[in-house]
């Protein structure tokens, strides 16, 4: 199981459940290192004093805050003195309805797992899972991790207690100042748009969405390692809004009602005659052929690729 990032107790009234915190999100990104171009040696970041031009060890670093133009310097110990007292407890302060908490407040997800095998611990943990599942409630509480106090939401996911750190109210920007144009949408236009959306609605299946960026990056790295060259594709041009919004909605709705996928509706209408493939380079065609699952593409000429894609 994942490494515990924090351990303490989840406190609910006078019930304390010893728990450990493990992450609920894996970082699968490919990470790069900064290298010195000349010798491929990994760059190190080092701290230097701007006055004396000498390297400064981490223990000699203090923290400075600009208070109305005055520099206030705090040491680690001084900062430590304001850490809240109960650093090992997540105290549940309130239960709220899950549906009332907009996900915009959720920051990082973790799981809480029972600490140790003691029967009482496991039973208390299960009691919380059961009661929160039944009531569809999420518990709000605070806890301190790595010298910072967090507001956290504890809820049930997959039969386990998930803890998500939360943003504070003033960390979520108001929507009011965002320009919306305040245009009045014609009801017929909205009806058509809703119908298009309904035609295109599927069940949410996260497994169906793969990280294409990660896959492409892996491909680029493999190709480059073998000594190949990689060129970025020409980015798609930004389309202009349709001159007649209603007509665009109606034609889209027609297309999707006939069962055409939305990409096809778009491709057919974007250029009228559907030969958008003409302007693409061989590499781009090969890329699309790969996405379309066309076999034998590596042996095809540019023309053959375009034909195979048209038939696909």
């Amino acid at each position: 199981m994942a490494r515990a990032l924090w351990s303490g107790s989840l406190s609910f009234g006078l019930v304390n459940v010893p728990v450990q915190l493990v992450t609920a999100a894996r970082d699968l990104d490919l990470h790069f290192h900064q290298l010195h171009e000349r010798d491929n040696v990994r760059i190190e970041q080092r701290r230097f004093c701007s006055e004396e031009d000498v390297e400064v060890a981490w223990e000699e670093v203090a923290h400075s805050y600009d208070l109305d133009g005055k520099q206030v310097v705090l040491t680690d110990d001084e900062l430590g003195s304001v850490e809240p007292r109960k650093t090992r407890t997540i105290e549940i302060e309130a239960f709220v309805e899950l549906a009332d908490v907009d996900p915009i407040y959720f920051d990082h997800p973790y799981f809480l797992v029972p600490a140790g095998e003691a029967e009482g611990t496991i039973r208390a943990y299960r009691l919380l899972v059961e009661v929160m599942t039944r009531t569809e409630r999420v518990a709000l509480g605070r806890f301190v991790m790595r010298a910072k106090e967090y507001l956290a939401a504890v809820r049930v996911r997959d039969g386990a207690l998930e803890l998500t750190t939360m943003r504070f109210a003033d960390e979520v920007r108001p929507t009011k100042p965002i320009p919306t144009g305040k245009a009045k949408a014609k009801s017929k236009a909205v009806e058509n748009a809703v119908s298009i959306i309904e035609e295109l609605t599927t069940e949410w299946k996260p497994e169906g969405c793969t990280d294409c960026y990660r896959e492409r990056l892996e491909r680029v790295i493999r190709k480059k390692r073998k000594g190949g060259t990689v060129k970025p594709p020409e980015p798609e041009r930004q389309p202009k809004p349709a001159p007649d919004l209603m007509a665009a909605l109606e034609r889209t709705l027609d297309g999707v009602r006939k069962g055409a996928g939305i990409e096809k509706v778009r491709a057919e209408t974007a250029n009228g005659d559907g030969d958008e493939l003409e302007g693409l380079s061989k590499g781009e065609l090969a890329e699309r052929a790969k996405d379309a699952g066309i076999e034998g593409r590596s042996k095809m000429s540019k023309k053959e690729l375009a034909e195979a894609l048209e038939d696909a």
Partner: protein
Amino acid sequence: MAPRSIWNGTITFGMVNVPIKLYSATESKSVSFHEVHAKDGARIRHRKICPKHDKEVKADDIVKGYEVAEDEYVVLTKDEVKAAAGDRGKVIHLEEFVDASEIDPVFFEKTYYLGMRDEGEPYAVLHAALKRSERAGIGRFSFHDREYLVAVRALDDVIAMHTMRFHDEVVSGGDLDLPKGGRKPSADEVKMASKLVDMLERDFDPSEYEDTYRASVLDLIKRKAKGEEIDLAAQEEPEHGDDLAAALEASLSGSKG
């Protein structure tokens, strides 16, 4: 004053093109400090050093390398990283829609607001349709040379866009290996605990929760600025109760009082 947009682009669904601007929906308000040398209060500068020659390296001489084996790096140029971002440019195609409430919030990573650009009508139609249908549009978004999976939904009077975690990045409850067996909570315990939940039931009002840690750090800064001596107090630990039923009962009677 209108906030500053960080990107502009176009959302499409079918033939409908919606020009939009992108805004950050969240910002951290944690107190941030500059690193200084404790001895003289002088600002710390970070220097990039090549350990081989122990010399500072200029930004122009630094490249991005991916470690494929120990000490073996594949160096990628900016263009090669761009190639991985795909060819979508500044266009977000919404190709399918899902019931917005079906997406578990664990998938949401960062939130942006979308504002209208140039023309208000397409924006208004998309907003109204998302709101009425209670659906979220799923698409891909290229930003700073990387591609994200996004969910686009109506939020109040604006359209919000969440970048999403991929399914293999989300740990499921089944991965946790929770202990099995043992005695289940008794009906009485469930009843008492439910009562306790009811007593602590509130409407969610985010403004009730202040970042007290942030406030106390700011207070500390002010005290220090006045030349106050800072008391370096010790922390204390809570105790764990053993008797579940007794603890629940005591909590209930405490809440009543």
